[in-house]
Each structure stands twice: as structure tokens, then as C-alpha cells.
């Protein structure tokens, strides 16, 4: 029947046009990182009519099937986990690098060394006013450097805290978005372009969440994703169409604690885990810095108390305050430096007390060794984190490449498809033309 040829040609035209549309869609989204390659399935259309045992087939051409979306749950998951681990290491690395520059550039170590050097110079001639003044000024500079270090460390801490707060909002937005997508997915029909787009959005939201927290998603049969945050304990974030809210609070020492609803948890992965452990390390650094300042204060003031000033009176405290934040020179005049041992007469050039102070400052438990140890420990930690995040970056980028290979658009194969489908379209139109000619031939019979 010539009409059957018309129908077959028309179905072929429809199928190849729709495939062409999808190819164009793939090419247009070649640069879209959240897009997963689409493909149109096709099925043969055969109608079979039977009367008794006599069956007759009538060919109906092709039937455009469903829109298939390239997906691979396993590779998606690998990429998510790798990016989660990378985000954790990188967030911690960035935060601690801030702390490292804060402590290195504030010159705490240099300040302590200069203070010791000025005191050593004073031993030469303990009564020379210029040397006494320069020793007091070196003490003032050291105190200032401690306060700068304290301020820059607080600054680095508040930057990390601000990032944690901001990213918590992002996580809550993503969770809400995912819940909304879940709700839409329940109603979306299998094999439609709309469903494929929803699945793209779902995977995007999951990737976004995985960057911030280590997550354990459960993909249900209808395509919806339930997400729980890994941690101690693991907590549910998105269940079906409902999303819980993550909240964060900061302790007095700057460390962060997270909660979903009323359940508090310690995150086990993602940038939040990195930031949270960076905040804990910063709290440790703050304690160390305060201890250093405290030891400089205690040693200097104890030496002052055990000695005699230039006028023979008992030495008064050199430093006030108790930590890096409030250390300051309180000694009114440079004459008050107690260089001589207690009981020395006025104008004594005895440097016994000064030598004792220098010995305790330079001891292995003194502030300069302490500052050196603190900086060495911190920079080793940062170097280790850098190496770690470089390694994880390689893992993550290869997982990403793997994911793109599975789901991304290959322009060469799309170009080949374009040619193939164009030819199919032309061939189908040729079929219609032949059908028309056949029809004309029949009509032209005389």
C-alpha cells in the first residue's frame, strides 16, 4: 500500500528530526558541566492483524522511544566522594595558610629575638640611658608584635567562621532545592526531557552538597534522592520532599559545632569538616600564642621582681596583661629596668639579674624556642596539608574526567550523529518522494 510507505517515511522523518533536535541540544550543552548526554531510543513499529490462523504484518516504520540520559551512579558517587575529600583538605589548607601568614608576618619570633638582643646589648653597659631605652622599646615592639599576631589570628579565624556561616546557608538552600526536585521527580514521566533535566538538577545539587559535607545519598527507584550527612552521628538532611536545616554555633574559643534540627553532629567530610578542624587548630594556636606571651610576661616580671632598678629600688613589673591580646609594657621609665640583683646599691653596674633573665628567655622552655617550635609545627602542618590536597586534587580531577567521559558530550561523535541523522532525514524524505511517484504512477494508469 503506498499510504503505508507515506506513514513509514513520515515516522522516519519524525524520528530523525527528534534525534537531530537532541543532538543539537547535546552540542549546545557541550560546555555545561551539569549536563548529562541525552539519546533518543527508537523502536520498530509493526502492526499485526490476524484473522483465524492467517496473520498479516503491516509495517508502520519507526516509533520514537524515550529520552535516555547517560548516567552512572557509581562514577557519580566516586566523583562526589573525591570532591568531598578534596574540599575538606583544601578548606583546611587555605584556612591554616591564613593562620601561618598571620603568625609569620606579624614578626612574633623576630620581636622576641630583638628583645633578647637588646637585653644582651644592655649587658655591655647596663646604666647607659640609650641602651636601657632601646631595651624597653624592644620590649614594647615585642608586645606589639604579639598583639598583631593575636589580631591577625583572630581575623583569620573570623574569616573562616564567616565562610562556615555563609556556606551553611548554601547547604540549606541546596537541601531545599533537592527536596523540591524530589517532589517534582515523583510526578515526572519516565523518558521525558523534563525528567532528564530534573535528574541533572538533582545530581548538581548532590555535588554541591558533597563539596560542603560528606554525604550518603540514597537514590530511590523513582529517581528521588534521600541524603544524610556522614558524621558522628550521621544525620538525615533530605528525606523525600522535606529538607532539614543545618545550623552552626561557635564556642568562645572559635570552634564550630553543627546541628541538624536539635541533633548536633561532627561532620566527617567536605569543606565544613576541613574548616571545622582548621578552627580547632586555630584555637590550639591561640592557646600556644597566649602561652608564649604569658611566658615572656612571667619571666620578665619575675626577673624584675628579683632585681634592683638603676636607683637601687626593687624592680617593678615590665609587662602588664596575661596573654597575646593584652600584653603591653607598663614600666614607666627605662631607669626601672632591674639589671642588678636585689639589694644592689643605686647606680650598680652589676648585670647579674639581667644575665639571669637572658638565660631564662633563651632556655629551651623560653619564648623564642617556643615561637620557633610553634611556627615549625604550623608550617609543617600546612606543608603536609598542601601535599595532601595536591594528591586529592589529582584523584578528584581523574574522577571528574571519568564522570565526564561517562556523561559528557563528545563533539566528534555528535558531529558524526549530525551527519548520520541528516542523511537519515534526507533518505526518509526520498522515501516519501518515491511513495508519491508510485501513487502518481498508479493514478496515471489509463
Amino acid at each position, binding site marked *: 500500500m503506498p499510504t503505508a510507505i507515506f506513514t513509514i517515511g513520515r515516522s522516519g522523518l519524525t524520528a530523525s528530526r527528534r534525534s537531530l533536535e537532541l543532538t543539537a541540544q547535546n552540542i549546545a550543552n557541550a560546555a555545561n558541566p551539569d549536563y548529562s548526554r541525552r539519546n533518543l531510543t527508537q523502536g520498530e513499529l509493526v502492526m499485526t492483524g490476524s484473522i483465524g490462523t492467517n496473520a498479516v504484518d503491516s509495517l508502520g516504520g519507526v516509533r520514537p522511544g524515550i529520552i535516555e540520559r547517560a548516567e552512572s551512579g557509581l562514577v557519580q558517587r566516586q566523583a562526589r566522594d573525591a570532591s568531598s575529600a578534596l574540599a575538606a583538605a583544601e578548606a583546611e589548607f587555605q584556612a591554616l595558610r591564613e593562620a601561618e601568614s598571620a603568625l609569620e608576618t606579624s614578626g612574633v619570633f623576630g620581636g622576641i*629575638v*630583638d628583645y633578647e638582643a637588646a637585653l644582651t646589648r644592655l649587658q655591655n653597659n647596663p646604666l647607659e640611658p640609650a641602651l636601657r631605652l632601646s631595651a624597653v622599646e624592644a620590649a614594647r615592639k615585642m608586645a606589639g608584635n604579639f598583639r598583631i599576631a593575636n589580631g591577625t589570628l583572630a581575623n583569620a579565624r573570623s574569616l573562616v567562621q564567616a565562610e562556615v556561616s555563609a556556606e551553611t546557608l548554601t547547604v540549606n538552600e541546596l537541601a531545599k532545592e533537592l527536596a523540591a526536585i524530589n517532589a517534582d521527580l515523583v510526578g515526572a514521566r519516565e523518558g521525558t526531557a523534563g525528567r532528564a533535566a530534573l535528574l541533572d538538577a538533582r545530581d548538581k545539587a548532590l555535588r554541591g552538597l558533597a563539596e560542603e559535607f560528606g554525604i550518603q545519598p540514597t537514590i530511590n527507584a523513582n529517581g528521588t534522592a534521600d541524603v544524610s550527612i556522614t558524621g558522628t552521628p550521621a544525620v538525615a538532611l533530605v528525606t523525600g520532599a522535606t529538607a532539614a536545616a543545618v545550623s552552626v554555633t561557635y564556642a568562645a574559643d572559635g570552634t564550630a559545632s553543627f546541628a541538624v534540627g536539635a541533633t548536633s553532629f561532627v561532620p566527617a567530610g567536605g569543606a565544613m569538616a576541613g574548616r571545622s578542624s582548621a578552627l580547632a587548630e586555630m584555637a590550639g594556636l591561640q592557646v600556644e600564642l597566649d602561652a608564649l606571651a604569658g611566658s615572656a610576661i612571667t619571666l620578665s616580671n619575675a626577673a624584675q621582681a628579683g632585681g634592683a632598678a638603676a636607683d637601687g629600688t626593687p624592680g617593678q613589673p615590665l609587662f602588664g596583661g596575661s596573654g597575646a591580646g593584652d600584653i603591653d609594657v607598663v614600666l614607666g621609665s627605662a631607669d626601672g629596668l632591674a639589671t642588678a640583683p636585689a639589694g644592689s646599691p643605686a647606680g*650598680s653596674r652589676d648585670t647579674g639579674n639581667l644575665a639571669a633573665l637572658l638565660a631564662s628567655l633563651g632556655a629551651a622552655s623560653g619564648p623564642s624556642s617556643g615561637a620557633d617550635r610553634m611556627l*615549625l609545627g604550623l608550617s609543617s602542618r600546612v606543608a603536609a596539608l598542601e601535599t595532601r590536597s595536591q594528591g586529592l586534587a589529582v584523584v578528584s580531577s581523574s574522577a571528574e574526567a571519568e564522570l565526564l567521559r561517562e556523561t559528557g558530550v563528545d563533539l566528534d561523535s555528535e558531529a558524526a550523529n549530525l551527519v548520520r541523522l541528516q542523511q537519515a532525514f534526507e533518505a526518509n524524505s526520498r522515501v516519501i518522494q518515491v511513495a508519491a511517484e508510485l501513487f502518481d504512477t498508479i493514478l496515471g494508469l489509463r
Partner: protein
Amino acid sequence: MSSVTNSTGSFFNRSLAQMADLRSGIERTRSQIATGRKIERGSQDPAAAAQLRSVAQREALASVEGDNAARLGQDLGAAATEVEAVTALLQRARELALQAANAPTGADGRQAIAAELEQLSQELFSRANGTSLTGEPLFAGQSSGVAFTRDAAGVVTYAGTPESGAVPVAPGTAIERGLPGNEVFQFDLNGTPSSAFAVLGGLTAALQGGAPDPVAAANAALEGIDAALDTTNRATTILGTRMAWVDQVQDQQGDRKIALAERRSRVGDTDIGDAIARLQQTMTALEASQAAFARVSALTLFDALR
């Protein structure tokens, strides 16, 4: 569809990441060359940064110790000059005592000798209270006041402390600042404590008529002057030894400064030749990688199909 393709996005991502790596390597080498420092932050090489910190600490202390040694050398030199002058003065006093002990020298001659001895006593007193370049007393020990005081009766007493204190000039090395006056001008004469001032003062008084037998007094004073000379000679030796020690320490400080600078340079400075070769190598790699990227990214089927 489960076919695996070579995604275009993956190719671009990979190429960009590799070129960014090369570029950041070039940036780092360039800043190493520009600043001359291999390490910008401690975490680039924690061990080297710790070494640099300890070198910086040693350098700061070494520079202060160098200043201390230089000033100590000056102070010791000033003290030695004074002690040498005192030795010359005592030798002159000994000659005068010898003359006075000579019987033919008449009463007038002894008066003249007494006048000169009085002058010498004055000079001795002012030299004993000599000060350093910065105005500190040279022979007062750890006291900042005058070393010797003289009361109305002309009796000179030591007002300083018996210790002069030490100045640190190198790690673990402290050198005594000088000699306290009691070790330069006071001595023990036949079991009784005496001093150069007492000997000269006593002789002057005896020659001015304070003693019935000036010749015997002058003879007796010779022993005291000899003891005073012994004491100053010993002081000269001690001061000279300490100055030699300071010189030696200064030499060592110079050597250590060079060693510290070499160490700092080895640990923290950029090896320019190496850095430039590395820069050139990385730049060649980047250029090649860019060229390859341009060639490969042009290989698309869309160009072939026309």
C-alpha cells in the same frame, strides 16, 4: 546508552589544568628570582624555614655580641692606657725615692722631690678615677660612682665594688669588663693592706719634714713603691691578655658571621642559574603545551565536514 566517549569538556578541563600548573610554576620561579628568596612562606619548606629562623636569631645576637666586643675592647684599651701611665708614674716616683734616699741630697732637694711627688700623687688619683669613652669609671668595678675618694686628711679609699662584671661576647663566653681599682692600686705590704696612694702620700709627708730620718723613710718607701709597681704590672698583663682574648673573639665573630651568611644563603637564597634554567625549561614546556592544545583542539569533526 552505556557507551564511553571521550568528552570534549574533559579534554578542555585537563588541558587547562595542566597549563595552569605550568603557569603557576613559572610564577613561583619568577618571584624566587625577583626576591632572591627561595622560601616565601614557612610551609614551602618547614625545615629550611626553621633553619633560617635560627640563623636569623644567631645573626641578631652575633651583631650585638660584635658591638659588645668592640666596646669591651675600647674599655679595656682605655684601662690599659691608664695603667701604663700609672706604671710610668710609679717608676718616676721610685727614681725620686732613690734620690731622696741618697744622703747627699739636702733638705731643699728633698723638699723639691716632695713637691714633685705630690704632683705625682695628684696625677695618680685622677688616673685612678679615669673614665671610659662613654663616661663610665674604669676602675670602680660594678659601681657607677667614682672609684676612689679622698677625705679631708688626704686618705684615699676605694669606693667601688670588688667585682667588675662580665660582658657576653660569644655564645657561652663572657669577658670581665675591666679590673676593679682595688686590684690595680691596692696591695698587701708585709702583711698590712696598703695602696699606691698611701705609699706616695707617706713618702711625701716624710720628705716634707714629717719624719726625723727622711733617708730611712725614703729607703723604706722603696719597698712600697716596688709592691705598687708589681701590682700595676700584673694589672697590665691581665688587661693585655683580655684585650688579646677580645681580639681573638672578634676574629671568631667575623668567621662565624661569614659562616652564618653562607648558611643563610645556602638554605634560603635562590640559586639564580638553576632558577633561570628551570624557568626556561618550564616556559618551553608551556609554549609546547599551548601549541599542542591549539593543534589538538582544532581537530574537530565539524571542521572536516563542509
